């Protein structure tokens, strides 16, 4: 089945620095979604990017479908960005499969 690997597993930044998160998946994906999970546990969708480059606010995602990889760039990080970032893939197996997550900590 589909496997989704994320790197790094954890990342510590100073406020204002940029973050680069990676997601690699094992087979063709028809959808790719980045989620944010707060330290309290709730998950919210950040953006959907099955291919190409998409921007929203300080977030930029680039997905290279044929290479089965996606990145999430967070510019000018803030302490409120701290949490876990999850990549999720939907393929033709009709399931949404999540990656292992990147835990981001932004210090003031």
């Amino acid at each position, binding site marked *: 089945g589909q496997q*989704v690997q*994320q790197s790094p597993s954890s990342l510590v930044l100073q406020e204002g620095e940029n973050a680069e998160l990676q997601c690699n998946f094992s087979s063709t994906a028809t*959808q*790719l*979604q980045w989620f944010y999970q707060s330290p*309290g*546990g*709730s*998950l*919210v*969708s950040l953006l*959907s990017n099955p291919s190409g480059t998409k921007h929203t606010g300080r977030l930029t995602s680039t997905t290279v479908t044929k290479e089965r990889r996606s990145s999430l760039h967070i510019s000018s990080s803030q302490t409120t960005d701290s949490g876990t970032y*999850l990549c*999720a*893939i*939907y393929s033709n197996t*009709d*399931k*949404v*499969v*999540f*990656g*292992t*997550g990147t*835990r981001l900590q932004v210090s003031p």
Partner: protein
Amino acid sequence: EAGVTQSPRYAVLQEGQAVSFWCDPISGHDTLYWYQQPRDQGPQLLVYFRDEAVIDNSQLPSDRFSAVRPKGTNSTLKIQSAKQGDTATYLCASSPDRGSAETLYFGSGTRLTVL
């Protein structure tokens, strides 16, 4: 629009005890998912429904876990005889679209600790 509601928020059990988790999806969402998220891991799908029908429960440990959605709205996930390895956050999600990550909405989860 109300979001996905889960209860209880926390549960602490001794090994061998039973527990039930409840999920109320967003009104009109026909697809409902239960995920298990162990500490420091991503969510792992246990079971999902379309209306009242189970579509995939291949990852649900059937000897101790069960899940129902009798009227195609609310759902209950039950663990009989919990084990320490069941310690995790249990997340419910709903979607108006079949298997769409883009329209997946999550509840706050139930954090289970089995002692």
